[in-house]
């Protein structure tokens, strides 16, 4: 057989098209995603008439632009016009809250449409988890506007229950497909959403019985989700898998980006959210850092499954911090500290940083090698000392500052290194050991 024959055989492999219905469904999902996340340039165009934008230069190279205008295109034009009208309604509905006219469009059309395109159990579970988060964001928004009526509250609680049930169902399916890691990811995301929103609703409950009721409803869901998560973590810990190390490594990268994002949000939120919110977020980022460090320690000991769970927990805390900060921006809690108070706050933090670091070290060392119950103990004790520890990590002045920016730079370097798909094992080990060194110099 010569090369030409081989090429001939290869050409017999035809491209596999999508079914028309599959193609249309994904198109609709894409279209609603575009409406929900419009390009800044596209927004201006919608508002200011049909002006050309530099954004469109990106499309100049595409062949489909050179097609000739035909009668068919006029029909397409009409269809597109209709879609734009529908699309605008759907886009406007995206921000609707319970009790508002477009809310039904949001829940019954937008969300159903986007949900119809989640095919795998993981995609379905993630979709449901994001809907649960949306319901809770709505509760926060309504409550902040003083519009959380008993009816709206009941509606939100019922929907929350449904979404959480659906997540759990799909998580079970994932587990039965032997994808406990995928299951953990979704379950952990849901737990972080519930936890963070519980905190926010609880802080609102002094002014509203309804908010207190939502907080209680969230706690109820959370206990079920936590049970499921605990079982999954156990399952992953016991698992014998050939690629545990790769999985743990991948998770470590995700954990680092999650922490950096949370840290960026935290920095950007200074002055625009209340001191309570900052301190809550601070505690969580500190916990995330502790788990990140635990994760590296576990990796160093070859306990890759444990490392995976540590990193996933770090992601969970980072996400909680971000949700709390985002919700805090929408809330104008009376009696918050003004930005000018922050200077003093920071300097106190700096002066106590060294002592707290010691506390953190002792907590971390007790947890090492301990099991689940010990791990949650770190969470709580880290919580009590968190604000100063975190300031010591990232924003305190003095020697810590040098070390912290070094850690920061290390994480960032490592992120760019791993984003090129192939990372060599030795570079990875170097980076990890550097990061561990710098973490220990910071008092871990």
């Amino acid at each position, binding site marked *: 057989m010569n090369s030409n024959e081989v090429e001939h055989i290869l050409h017999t492999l035809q491209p596999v098209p999508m079914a028309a219905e599959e193609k249309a469904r994904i198109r609709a999902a894409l279209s609603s995603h*575009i409406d929900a996340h419009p390009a800044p340039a596209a927004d201006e165009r919608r508002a200011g008439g049909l002006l050309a934008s530099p954004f469109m230069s990106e499309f100049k190279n595409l062949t489909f632009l050179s097609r000739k205008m035909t009668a068919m295109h006029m029909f397409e034009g009409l269809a597109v016009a209709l879609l734009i009208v529908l699309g605008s309604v759907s886009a406007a509905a995206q921000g609707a809250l319970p009790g508002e006219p477009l809310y039904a469009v949001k829940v019954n059309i937008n969300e159903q449409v986007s949900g119809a395109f989640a095919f795998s159990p993981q995609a379905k579970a993630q979709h449901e988890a994001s809907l649960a988060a949306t319901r809770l964001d709505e509760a926060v928004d309504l409550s902040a506007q003083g519009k959380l009526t008993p009816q709206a509250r009941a509606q939100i609680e019922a929907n929350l229950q449904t979404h959480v049930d659906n997540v759990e169902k799909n998580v079970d399916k994932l587990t039965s497909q032997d994808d406990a890691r995928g299951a953990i990811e979704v379950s952990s995301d849901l737990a972080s959403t519930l936890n963070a929103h519980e905190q926010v609703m609880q802080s609102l409950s002094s002014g509203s019985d309804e908010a207190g009721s939502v907080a209680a409803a969230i706690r109820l869901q959370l206990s079920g989700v936590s049970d499921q998560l605990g079982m999954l973590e156990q399952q992953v810990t016991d698992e014998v898998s050939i690629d545990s190390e790769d999985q743990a490594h991948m998770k470590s990268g995700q954990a680092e980006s999650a922490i950096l994002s949370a840290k960026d949000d935290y920095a950007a939120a200074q002055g625009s959210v209340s001191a309570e919110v900052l301190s809550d977020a601070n505690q969580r980022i500190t916990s995330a850092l502790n788990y990140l460090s635990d994760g590296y320690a576990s990796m160093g000991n070859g306990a890759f499954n444990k490392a995976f769970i540590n990193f996933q927990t770090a992601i969970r805390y980072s996400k909680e911090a971000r949700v709390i900060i985002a919700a805090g921006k929408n809330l104008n809690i009376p009696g918050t500290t003004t930005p000018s108070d922050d200077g003093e706050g920071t300097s106190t933090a700096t002066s106590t940083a060294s002592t707290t670091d010691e506390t953190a070290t002792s907590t971390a060392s007790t947890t090492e090698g301990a099991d689940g119950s010990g791990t949650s103990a770190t969470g709580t004790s880290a919580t009590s000392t968190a604000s100063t520890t975190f300031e010591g990590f990232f924003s305190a002045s003095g020697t810590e500052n040098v070390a912290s920016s070094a850690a920061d730079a290390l994480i960032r370097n490592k992120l760019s290194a791993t984003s090129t798909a192939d990372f060599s094992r030795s570079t990875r080990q170097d980076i990890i050991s550097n990061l561990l060194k710098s973490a220990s110099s910071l008092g871990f």
Partner: protein
Amino acid sequence: MKQHETDTARDKFLKAYDELSDSLFSHCFYRVSDREVALDLTQETFVKTWEYMANGKEIGNLRPFLFKVAGNLIIDHYRKKKSDSLDTLQEAGFDVASEDAQRIVSSSEGKHALEALGALDEKYRQVVLMRYVDELSPREIGEIIGESENAVSVRINRSINKLKELLKFNQY
């Protein structure tokens, strides 16, 4: 043409979807051998690409860019799936026995090609699929996988030689 200037970025992106989604899907399908997963990957590819552009970033040539995004998502997919890690995939070849894959290839020649493809290393299979099924040029493939046009041609040539041996071995 005037018509072009009045089209919104949104419509253009959806048109790009209409034109390019089938070949993207096909590529994902041959790589992962699972229809549902390939559908998810296709959707995710377009969503990610839109988000990239919505953040104001420039894309020179959309088609190779989409394949690059899809390629990264496929690698992520394998990293996530413990039972199908990239390593096992490379060792064992992709799942030619999958019902989906068997159904779409009717000719016996095609079945042999599919089997031989399954026995190729992932990095060879990727370029062969792009060259012969997706009909991308070596230059475009180079853009996607971050290699020079020359390196791509060499890799394709090696793939053909490997396939030649594999097909000889399974002489039919």
